[in-house]
């Protein structure tokens, strides 16, 4: 009710006859809260790591951009320098935001950078594919509870800073990502595509000063593979952007980088270089003519069932439980426990799709999971490369999301990685059409 009254007063203050002099159609606020773990913690993303972190290379942050359009519609984008956040954690953040701030689920968009130098998070609902000691597990639970608090805190801070703002959209290009399925460990399937677009949303206050810069890119953050905590190359990029614009908050939104990575890797200098390249692309975009975004902000969120292929039989699982591979043994045991408990293995997954539409200037499609690059290329081809931003790793990073092509090619993202995700079987071949269809439905819903 308070929101509605506020919207009405804002509308009244805008003389309809003089559009040029109208106040900014947006209010915006941004906040950054540090989430660097305070104690050694198991890191996420690489199963070969066997012990907790041994130091901090770079501070981690959770960041929030709160937006309110002229109708009073309020939404918040939350990004975190973390590797993998599943729905148990993100749903907790979204639920608290709904209760505390009145933002509905479709108005909260949650994305992680996929830094493999970030800590494990989780509330125990989805055990990681690594063996943790009870002490290590307790550290992860403690950290996760603190992270949820800080994510909500960031949203609250950003909402508290809502002030008249102007939004603009543009894109640059950056050569950082290569399609990693060229390598035998992932494919090998040479010649795969990449998405080198750098979508940029700028948020300026009434004096033109930058309040927030949101930048996307489709590429794994796996330059570092050691035991130091950090944001990997997206962390470097955000530091670069914030250093160039003191006072502004830089938010990195991971794209459909499921099968892309920055290469070569394993050096601090390379991570800094990739960060500089993204920051330079952002800088050039900010310096170019960006398209002003008008309201209204229309949002939609839905979960669509994505079916799995037929699960393994109990016999196969029992055989796998005694097999030679540590990860496969653990996976088989996990599935057997599910089978014993529920009587059957899940045959589908409730897959989250979210769409934010900024007037006619920008449609942001946020997909769950480690989405391969085919999705962003297909959706941008369908809805317009220059007005469509496709994020992956949003709202629930529970599995790789292969396209039909990648599924049929097999390899890591199409099939093999499922054992790391605790899921019973590869996705059915309908996966791509189901997701693209749901995205289309939400785009339609936000266009009405």
């Amino acid at each position: 009710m308070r929101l509605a009254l506020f919207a009405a007063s804002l509308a009244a203050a805008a003389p309809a006859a003089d559009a040029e002099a109208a106040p900014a159609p947006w209010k915006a606020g941004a906040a950054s809260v540090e989430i660097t773990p305070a104690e050694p913690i198991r890191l996420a993303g690489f199963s070969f790591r066997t012990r907790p972190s041994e130091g901090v290379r770079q501070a981690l942050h959770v960041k929030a951009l709160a937006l309110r359009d002229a109708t009073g519609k309020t939404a918040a984008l939350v990004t975190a320098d973390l590797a993998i956040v599943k729905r148990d954690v993100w749903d907790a953040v979204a639920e608290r935001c709904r209760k505390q701030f009145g933002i509905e689920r479709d108005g909260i968009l949650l994305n992680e950078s996929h830094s493999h130098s970030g800590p494990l998070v989780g509330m125990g609902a989805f055990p990681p594919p690594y063996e943790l000691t009870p002490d290590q597990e307790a550290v992860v639970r403690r950290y996760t509870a603190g992270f949820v608090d800080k994510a909500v805190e960031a949203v609250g801070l950003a909402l508290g800073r809502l002030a008249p703002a102007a939004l603009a959209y543009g894109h640059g290009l950056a050569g950082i990502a290569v399609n990693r399925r060229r390598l035998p460990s992932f494919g090998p399937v040479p010649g795969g595509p990449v998405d080198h677009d750098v979508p940029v949303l700028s948020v300026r206050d009434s004096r033109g000063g930058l309040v927030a810069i949101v930048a996307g890119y489709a590429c794994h953050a796996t330059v570092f593979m050691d035991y130091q905590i950090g944001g990997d190359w997206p962390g470097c990029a955000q530091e670069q952007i914030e250093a160039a614009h003191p006072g502004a908050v830089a938010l990195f939104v991971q794209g459909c980088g499921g099968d892309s990575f920055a290469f070569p890797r394993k050096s601090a200098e390379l991570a800094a270089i990739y960060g500089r390249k993204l920051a330079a692309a952002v800088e050039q975009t900010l310096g170019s003519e960006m398209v002003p975004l008008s309201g209204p902000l229309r949002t939609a969120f839905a979960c669509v069932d994505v079916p799995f292929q037929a699960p393994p039989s109990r016999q196969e699982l029992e055989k796998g439980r005694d097999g030679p591979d540590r990860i496969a043994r653990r996976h088989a045991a996990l599935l057997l426990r599910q089978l014993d408990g529920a009587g059957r293995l899940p045959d589908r997954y409730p897959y989250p799709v979210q769409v934010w539409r900024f007037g006619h200037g920008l449609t942001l499609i946020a997909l769950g999971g480690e989405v391969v690059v085919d999705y962003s290329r297909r959706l941008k081809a369908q809805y317009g490369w220059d007005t469509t931003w496709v994020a992956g790793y949003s709202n629930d990073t529970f599995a790789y999301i292969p396209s039909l092509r990648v599924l049929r090619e097999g390899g890591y993202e199409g099939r093999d990685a499922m054992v790391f995700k605790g899921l019973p079987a590869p996705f059915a071949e309908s996966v791509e059409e189901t997701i693209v269809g749901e995205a289309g439905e939400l785009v339609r819903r936000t266009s009405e």
Partner: protein
Amino acid sequence: MNWIQNAIVLILSAAAIVQAPAAGADGWKAGVAKLEITPKVPMWMGGFASRNKPFEGVRQPIYVRALALEDGTGSSAAIVTFDLLMIDRGMADAIADRCRERFGLGRDRLLLNVSHTHSGPVAGRVLMTMYDLDASQSEIVRQYTENAIDRAVEAVGTAIRAMKPATASFGQSLAGIAVNRRRSPIFAGVPGGPVDSDVPVLCVRNPGGKILAVVVGYACHASALNDYLISNDWQGYALDEIDRAHPGVVSFFLQGCGGDCNAFPRRGEALARDHGKVLAAAVEEVLNGKMAPVAGALRSAFDRVEIPFKHPLTREELQQRLSDPDVHVRVFAKHMLSRLGRADRTEASYPYPILVWRFGGEFTLVALGGEVVVDYALRLKRQYGFDRTWVAGYSNEVMSYIPSRRILDEGGYESDASMIYYGRPGRYDDSVEEIIVGKVAALVERTAGTAP
């Protein structure tokens, strides 16, 4: 003679250790040479029509480098790379003729490649409608070109004389540098184009295992810098890094099918340096990893194939263009008319050079002329094997962009607009891709010999 700073000749294989049992095990001999070709007199720089004056300083010296190879059958060959935007047919023929006369190298045993640096001097006579050269500047270019030819031949001779027993190995990595630039409306406004992220590396060592030469390929324009300082652009920084990591080595950059790919973002020395470091790190990955020994004979084939233009221009059509509002079109028309002689229309096709080198059973190097777009590399590697095929563009001469059928269908800079600068009568015929790929197949077949 003092156009070009004093030549620095590096004969690096002289210290070859003879005691190693591996000496000549796979029959190779190798020698390298690196001669500086930094211009001394202010002259026009190649690559950007926006530049309006000669260079004002030197950011990096530029070089012509030669790697001479002799296989177990005693047959020599040479790779010559230029830190230049391009060389034209006149330069290539002059170098090839002299290398045949002086060193007995057949045309099929000589591979010429340019880095495509947009911060090098203008050389040769190609792309002339892009530059506003007066008579004295034209004369400087002519003399620089003569000297570059001399230096190239001298480098080949030096490398051949320096040949000592050696081993060769091949491997590949990946590097994220290039983007498909046709996303930008400046070129075509066609998003989603492909790139080729492969980094093929040929490593030549002396029998003691010391690296003599590293040849590295990548498909990407060298146009990160656009000022008035001479350099080899980001590729120059890459080669510097490799040379620093391996003192005494001569590293070579072989431009791939980077016709429609740029290093992005660009502008500014820091970014150029960053792109170079990424490539150098990819090369280190290969050198530190398991490389495949390259044995066996080096089989080679060179030929030209006619690639037709879609619409050769008539004299009348050219005369109409003399009054075109675009100055580049007017200059183009004047230039084409002056070349017409007694003919009533422009040439129907271009004799396009293709070179194929097969290194034993290990890998095949396909070297294509012109600014080849990336589709060719991807298609040829798909056909002959991504792990055993190296496709270079910008080889033996640069006469124009070489579009694929896809790019001809899409249109844009590489298929159409650039042809004005190159003084070619409009776009190539739709058949260009099939003609080139077909000729490559014939040459690959010719080099098959009895090798596996």
